[in-house]
């Protein structure tokens, strides 16, 4: 299943937020999107999921523009885990996961044994089977996040879009979740903020900066000291193993670095 964005732009509040992005997601790959806060990762993922219409350009699924595909059709193939999705409804953990079956059920087609099995399996996958009867508002942030993932798995998509999926998780669950997702026969697009996770789990990494994709390639091609400094403004050392994997170590900014002079400048302006 191929997902492709062609010169896709989106603006809000009179500002261009996604700027002519071209991106082809290869079937079966794990594509990471990295970039500073506000660089447009969430917006791009929404465009790829088809829940926001692009201002110009097209996103297409298997060569068919999303604009010409019904919402239900899209949702049978693409699942989305949002960065923040909360509710005040008094639902149980299980009911939250059951929502994932929505695109496969009609107004008249009843819930079946098969749907129950799929939900059971999804809960098991994220290690939340024991929590299935718990009320949503009694769960921790990490538990809720795992249930969101379970919901997206219950949707049985071919493509999974994840927006910063490891927020709120402890390191064990961060790795576990990325490993779980990687192990699925799925195409995955994930906005990640941990560069080392991106290095370990991604087949390719796209770098976003101010609404544009400024680089796209394998982790070793993308994670260089110069680029990390240019995009994130942090000094880092990138260590490479013989097997080609890389590891990013951040260095503490030394005094008189540009960040500090920036702050002073801002203070000058204020005066």
């Amino acid at each position, binding site marked *: 299943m191929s997902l492709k964005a062609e010169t896709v732009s989106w603006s809000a509040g009179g500002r261009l937020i996604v700027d002519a992005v071209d991106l082809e997601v290869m079937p079966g790959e794990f594509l990471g999107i990295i970039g500073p806060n506000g660089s447009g990762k969430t917006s791009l993922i929404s465009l790829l999921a088809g829940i926001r219409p692009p201002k110009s350009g097209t996103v297409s699924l298997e060569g068919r523009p999303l604009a010409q595909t019904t*919402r239900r059709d899209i949702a049978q193939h693409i699942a989305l885990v949002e960065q923040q*999705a909360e509710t*005040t409804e*008094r639902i149980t953990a299980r*009911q939250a996961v059951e*929502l994932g079956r929505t695109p496969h*059920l009609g107004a008249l087609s009843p*819930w079946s044994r098969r749907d129950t099995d799929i939900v059971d399996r999804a809960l098991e996958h994220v290690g939340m089977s024991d929590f299935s009867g718990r009320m949503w508002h009694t769960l921790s942030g990490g538990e809720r996040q795992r249930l969101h993932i379970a919901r997206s798995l219950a*949707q049985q998509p071919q493509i999974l879009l994840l927006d910063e999926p490891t927020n709120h998780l402890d390191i064990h669950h961060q790795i576990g979740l990325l490993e779980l997702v990687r192990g699925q026969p799925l195409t995955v697009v994930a906005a990640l903020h941990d560069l080392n996770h991106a290095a370990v789990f991604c087949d390719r990494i796209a770098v976003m900066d101010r609404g544009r994709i400024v680089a796209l390639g394998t982790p070793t091609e993308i994670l260089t000291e110069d680029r990390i400094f240019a995009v994130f403004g942090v000094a880092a050392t990138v260590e490479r193993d013989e097997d080609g994997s890389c590891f990013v170590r951040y260095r503490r900014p030394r005094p008189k670095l540009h960040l500090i002079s920036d702050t002073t400048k801002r203070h000058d302006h204020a005066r």
Partner: protein
Amino acid sequence: MRSTPLSINRTGAVLTALALLFLALVLGAAIGETAIPLDVVGKTIANRLWGAGYPLDAIDEGIIWNYRLSRAVVAACCGAALSLCGVVLQALLRNALADPYILGISAGASTGAVAVAILGIGAGMLTLSLGAFFGAVFAFALVSLLALRAGRGTGAIILAGVAGSQLFNALTSFIVTKSANAEQARGIMFWLLGNLSGVRWPDVTLALPVALGGLLVCLWHARALDAFTFGAESAASLGIPVKRVYVILISATALMTAVMVSIVGSIGFVGLVIPHAARFLVGVRHGLLLPAAALTGAIFMIAADILSRVIIPGQVLPIGVITALVGAPAFALILSRGRAAS
């Protein structure tokens, strides 16, 4: 769905629900200033529906059939419809305090009613009900337009509704204080608080199809309403055509509310409180919640109507007073429960 409390036996549940509703209707016909035995009520229904031909006192039969039963049926329709509207709007707007009047409909209806009753608009061609209906639809159109212009999001709808309600309530007060005499003002106040005394069978032929049609439309969208649990974007990602669902369901609730308000006046609290009560009983899944709310609303409204007739002998209280007297404490309970939950 399997994880809801009442999934044991669908047919059994439906039959029990219908039996309860029927019982409420019969009690609604039996209880009143002159109490009439239940068997007479049963025989009257049999006579009228199947021509059973039981010999009955003509006055009793007349009271039951022409006044009380039509009234009980309309009360049931009204309670069901308002509760459905409450459930739908609370889900779509993701606001526990949403009620059927949040879109400015009751305020518009009262303006329409006073425009007809006091200003004489329509020159006698328009009934109070029709005036109320046009007022309600006009107010809803204005509120929707404002909401669309104000931007997206459910916040815009709620704010536009508040603004619209304030405007039309002010207009109503303006007309009443400027032009009404004391008797008219009292009549209008009585109408505003909800009144079923004028209800006859022709009202049933309007209220019943609207309530049943509304129930079907809502049930058809039960899964869509579930999908709004985590917000509109999440619903969209689950395959729900969000805009279309908004338009269909909000129009349906507006129409149901406008019709009910035009028949019985703006009865408060039912549409706000019953959905919460029903959630408490059967959980939050709309496939079950919608019929449960409709049923609870119908029975609650019949009971409120009975109370309004018997609580002060020789005097009929506006039904809105009863629903509010029960509704306000229930509402306080919900508020405190909501705080405990968060």
